[in-house]
């Protein structure tokens, strides 16, 4: 009778390795094809007013891209807001995270504010900020930056705490000035956690911009979504949703993933 059974945790937890001949991209593509198939089946089952099919949605999306008024009045303002909100949110969160990493009392003072901002539902922040700032760009940017900043702050502050103390000691022995320590040690050590935070913040940020626009703006993708819902233009509503997803995907694939790979290569 066995009294103790040893198992290899790695083999139990690790997913089976995909066949060496099938590239990972093929798995992604098959996942997308499956989603589209499921979507098509649903759209055949329900009325077009409830679920627009993939073909109608793609046609509506193409129509949106051809519509210059939509591009100027809705897409461009949304992209501007996303850009501004991410700049302020990421910049502010990173600056506070670095300060908190250097100065313990700053971290302790900021802890309650961080906790409040990460625990309040986004929709409440939207309503409160609408009362404070009224409708429009300022409100949308402030809401998104306020919600994005804590994510970045937490990642950067934790990253600062985990910077290799041995390297910092080496820097002290060789009298590296602060500028050099920031550029050569902190920046490189923080790049990983910061980028992870930015990936999450970008997705959340874009969702928040659309939500805030839907509730309190006269232009933007969110506003266009609200109009489509009111007019029961389901294909356009689905197309706008797809567009928001495409923006998130584009930012991740074109900007964040290459940056992350570059950092991982250097840190290897």
């Amino acid at each position, binding site marked *: 009778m066995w009294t103790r059974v040893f198992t290899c945790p790695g083999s139990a937890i690790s997913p089976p390795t995909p066949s060496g001949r099938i590239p990972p991209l093929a798995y992604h593509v098959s996942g997308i094809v499956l989603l589209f198939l499921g979507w098509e089946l649903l759209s055949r089952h329900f009325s077009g007013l409830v679920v627009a099919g993939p073909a109608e949605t793609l046609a509506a999306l193409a129509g949106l891209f051809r519509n210059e008024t939509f591009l100027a009045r809705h897409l461009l303002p949304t992209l501007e807001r996303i850009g501004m909100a991410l700049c302020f949110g990421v910049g502010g969160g990173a600056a506070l995270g670095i300060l908190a990493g250097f100065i313990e009392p700053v971290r302790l003072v900021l802890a309650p504010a961080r906790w409040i901002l990460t625990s309040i539902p986004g929709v409440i922040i939207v309503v409160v900020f609408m009362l404070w700032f009224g409708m429009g760009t300022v409100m949308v940017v402030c809401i998104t930056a306020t919600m994005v900043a804590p994510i970045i702050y937490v990642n950067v502050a934790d990253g600062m705490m985990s910077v290799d103390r*041995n*390297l910092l*000691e*080496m820097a*002290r*022995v*060789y*009298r*590296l*000035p602060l500028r*050099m320590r920031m550029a*050569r*040690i902190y920046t*490189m050590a923080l790049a990983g956690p910061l980028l992870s935070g930015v990936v999450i913040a970008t997705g959340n940020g874009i969702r928040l911009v659309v939500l805030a626009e839907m509730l309190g703006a006269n232009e933007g993708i969110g506003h266009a979504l609200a109009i489509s819902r009111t007019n029961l233009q389901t294909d356009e509503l689905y197309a706008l949703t797809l567009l928001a997803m495409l923006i998130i995907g584009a930012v991740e694939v074109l900007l964040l993933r290459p940056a992350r790979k570059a950092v991982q290569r*250097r*840190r*290897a």
Partner: protein
Amino acid sequence: MSVVIRMDNIHKRFGKRPVVAGFNLTVRQGETLGMLGPSGVGKSTILRLIAGLETPDSGRIRVATPRIGFVFQEARLLPWDTALSNVVLPLRAMGMSKPEALERARQYLRRMALSEFEDVLPSQLSGGMRQRVALARAFAVAPDVLLLDEPFTGLDKALKKSIRSLLETSINECGAAVVHVTHDPTELLDRTSRIVELKGPGSEVLETPHRVETIEQGQEP
């Protein structure tokens, strides 16, 4: 010979535990001092006090030069920088121009037989190679004081021998005062002129025959 390191009545505690108590030390220019003792006796703390990485609870430390080279037990190289960049870094911090720093770093990597590896990241180097990069970095700054904290830890016999030989040659050339901490007497460098053996905080220093000059160790107050 002028004094480059002077430690007077140094006390250092970590929490309630005294690590260094009433320690006195004088190291002169060009001298190689070996510091022996078992783990936890405070040898590394003394090196860290000299390097300014720790501050004493009481007592006075004077180091007559800002040019200190420190070879730690681990190489402590920036993992995202090449071997060359790691050696260039402290030279740039000293205010050396980029071309000058690059030339000097290459010269010291060549001495450590690492010319072919200057563009390689530390993760792609063996343990011995990484330690040689750390040595190149320490010697490139032309140190007046060289602190060696068990630099042969984790190296096999052959590597130990080769790095030891590189160390001896480089120290002979640069003429720095050396404080070499180790728990193993066989690791002491051939040019060691004095040995301090630490038994514990506030304990008497065992003077090793024929090479010990003067060393005082006070009592726990």
